[in-house]
């Protein structure tokens, strides 16, 4: 079954200009998908439509096989979670602990389990020392960590991350990305991650490329990155690992292009001279 199936989707904020036109894609259950595209290409708009925050002008959205509409939206929201691009839009509670608890209450988690879950997820994002802080008075990266903790507590079937690690320090980002990978690989959650980080894109299974509200490319990371020039003209890029890999194949050192550092290193280790 598809976790998400979108067809013929159009949307306009002002009733005049379409910011999404005839968007179609499907994401199988358990798939780790990334959405990329230039600023203003419509990524966050898609995310807001998928959680039923706004209704499409045209087209349909199916979540876990059910059509998303005014009646189904409340039920489906139990299955779809989002971490917004601006974490300030996420916070409800007056302390970090309350904020995480609020989501748990909404999902009817028994009171006696809450404290454990809150401490567990706060620990996993490195925010255990801040449980009593006010979410809006944290540093940028701390806010993003708290927003992510909120979703880790609930672990919905489908999780949308809208540039959720854009303000994390590189190590924090790596550790949060690991948590996200785990949700995917160990818990089989469907992940839809909107990102400008091409290294993260290389780690995903499926990529959707948006341009001016249109889906222009879909495929595996390597299929997408094969369009290097087109990507550049769309304000995008390819990951550093692939740039090195291209250079290595050009120099005839390796004979297959790869897009992660691990793969580059593996290739080179097999070729390494023993003397």
């Amino acid at each position, binding site marked *: 079954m598809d976790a998400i199936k979108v067809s013929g989707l159009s949307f306009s904020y002002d009733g005049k200009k379409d910011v999404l036109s005839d968007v179609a894609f499907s994401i199988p259950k358990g798939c780790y998908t990334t959405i990329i595209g230039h*600023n203003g290409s419509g990524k966050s708009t898609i995310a807001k439509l998928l959680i039923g925050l706004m209704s499409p002008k045209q087209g349909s959205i199916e979540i876990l096989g059910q059509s998303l509409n005014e009646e189904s939206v409340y039920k489906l929201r139990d299955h779809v979670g989002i971490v917004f691009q601006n974490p300030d839009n996420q916070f409800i509670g007056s302390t970090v602990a309350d904020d995480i608890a609020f989501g748990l209450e909404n999902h009817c988690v028994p009171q006696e389990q809450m404290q454990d879950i809150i401490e567990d997820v706060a620990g996993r994002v490195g925010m255990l020392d801040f449980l009593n802080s006010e979410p809006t008075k944290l540093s940028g990266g701390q806010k993003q960590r708290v927003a992510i903790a909120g979703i880790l507590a609930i672990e919905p079937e489908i999780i949308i991350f809208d540039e959720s690690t854009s*303000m994390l*320090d*590189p190590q924090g980002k790596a550790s949060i990305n690991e948590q996200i990978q785990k949700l995917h690989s160990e818990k089989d959650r469907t992940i839809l991650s909107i990102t*400008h980080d091409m290294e993260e894109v290389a780690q995903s299974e499926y990529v959707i490329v948006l341009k001016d509200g249109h889906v222009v490319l879909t495929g595996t990371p390597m299929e997408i990155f094969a369009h290097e020039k087109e990507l550049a003209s769309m304000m995008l890029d390819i990951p550093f*690992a692939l740039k090195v890999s291209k250079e290595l194949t050009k120099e005839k*050192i390796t004979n297959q292009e790869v897009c992660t550092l691990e793969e580059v290193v593996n290739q080179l280790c097999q070729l390494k001279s023993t003397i």
Partner: protein
Amino acid sequence: MSIEINHLEHTYNAGTPFSHQALKGIDLSIPEGKVTAIIGQTGSGKSTLVQHLNGLLIPSAGTLDICGFHIQPLLKIKDIKQLRKEVGLVFQFPEYQLFEETIEKDIAFGPKNFGIEEEKANELVRKILPMVGLDESYLQRSPFELSGGQKRRVAIAGILVLDPQVLVLDEPTAGLDPQGAKEMMTLFMDLNKKQGKTILLVSHDMEHVMRYCDHVIVLDHGKVLQENDVRTFFEHPEWMIEVGINPPAIIRLKMMLQEKGFKIPDSILDMPSLVECIKGQVNGHE
């Protein structure tokens, strides 16, 4: 004139149960006309520190000398308007900076506030927009009805239009698309190289820090852990690991290869030299 920071401390909510000391005695001399990066983990105090530079935050203790202004606790800064004209601060969250009903008014607000006539201010707005990758179709739109990256561009324009001598940029490329980030960094570097502007860049993007900055300051739990020139800093990946900074991709690759027995000098920081160096160590290419 360099920026001199002496024993600077900052405590949020001082005297309440929520009191939190974010800066614990910062001593720094930031050179004029250079690009200085401020890096460090989440919550290390970067944004708190840079908000002192234009008087947005006042130190709890210590002093700060910038562009002829002397800032110290409890002292009202005389002519703070002039300070804000000389030191332009782009916030980490563009949302905190935007407030007018149209983008044109938002960007023109600063110049008008400094006494420039409306017509001239609007002219400046039209000049600045394309520099941040936006066109005139945005002028009459609301700054709140934009995508995240578009808001960031407007917020940057609102500061650049003031033509400040010191530019303080708090994660200015977060949320920009990859080419947009590159263009924005190029623009900042141009302002530094051609107009001699002093630039302070708070960034988590180590590729940018390595490629564009002259100088690095590492903050950790409200203290300065390290100050170095960029090259020396990136030639010592162990320092980065020690302070919990994930090095740039090229250095990570180098370290992964070194671990597998490849011999790669620490001084190699660019791709062509790295490829050349690897070439000599694989079968058939020795």
